[in-house]
């Protein structure tokens, strides 16, 4: 199982979150691509190189995990979702899109609003072949199920 991990990459703590998620995925035996690793440097990327590299990783991925935080979903993340949705149309092997939404302005503090206040086009795109989760461990449990594995036991680090 290969996962493309998409999220906000412009601040150090958002990148740190993605790197922690990537580390957990790899610890669970799931291959993972996130654009902030390797030779990537803040502000150093070029538009052309970014799209080529990310597109290739989306082609190779079985699932997209997208962090949907922000008042609006980050434009780069939205681009990844759209591209992966299109790729799913001609690749039945792709498992789907798993969104993660923490943002309390959108989901509320108790997550009572869930994903309902997200942009409907993006939400629809995800819900055709996936759903939105309130945390990374919830999304991980689904990923493990998709890859035919049991979710982490209670107390196991996720």
């Amino acid at each position, binding site marked *: 199982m290969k996962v493309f991990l998409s999220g906000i990459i*412009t601040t*150090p*703590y958002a990148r740190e979150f993605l790197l922690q998620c990537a580390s957990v995925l790899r610890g669970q035996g799931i291959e993972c691509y996130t654009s902030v690793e390797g030779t990537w440097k803040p502000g150093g990327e070029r538009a052309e190189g970014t799209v080529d590299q990310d597109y290739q990783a989306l082609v190779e991925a079985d699932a997209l995990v997208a962090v949907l935080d922000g008042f609006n979903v*980050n434009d780069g993340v939205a681009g990844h979702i759209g591209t992966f949705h299109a790729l799913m149309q001609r690749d039945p092997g792709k498992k789907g899109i798993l969104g993660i939404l923490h943002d309390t302005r959108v989901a509320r503090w*108790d997550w009572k609003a869930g994903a309902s206040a997200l942009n409907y086009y993006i939400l629809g795109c995800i819900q055709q072949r996936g759903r939105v989760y309130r945390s990374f461990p919830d999304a991980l449990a689904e990923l493990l199920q998709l890859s035919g594995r049991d979710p982490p036991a209670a107390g196991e680090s996720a």
Partner: protein
Amino acid sequence: MKIYMAGPLFTPYHRAFIARNAQRLSEAGFICYVPHERGVTREIEWASGHPRTAGGIFDMDYEMVAGANAIVALLDDPDVSSGTACEIGIFYGLMQNDTTKKGILGLLTDAQAWKREQVGAPPINAFTLGCVEKVGKVCKTVDEVVAQLTTWKREMRQAGLPD
């Protein structure tokens, strides 16, 4: 010297970053007001069916803003958080008649904002930027923040103000 830590509190990684910065400032001898610690109170209130109203949240945060000698405001993301911008405006206004208030420090780590600056555009909203620059500055790192706060603390002591 009391510092109000302003910034977006809406994701776990924003809150963790602000908490780490507050810890760093506390270790440097500053008293930090960290509003997201009140967020825990808010979650309990939601869970108990007694959510605080917008007015209640305003009163709670205003008390901390008004009681601070300086603000450290996290300015990241595509737009400065509206709550943060409002707090910057309030503090700028309060500073005009209160010599115990030393200034506002922005902390901007967002690569996209600095990219805007490189091509000559304001990295954040020009009014918010002006507010900060008139009474402080925008920093790229917490080290810069600590250095400026230390200078302000020294100035307060020299002026005989309680720090």
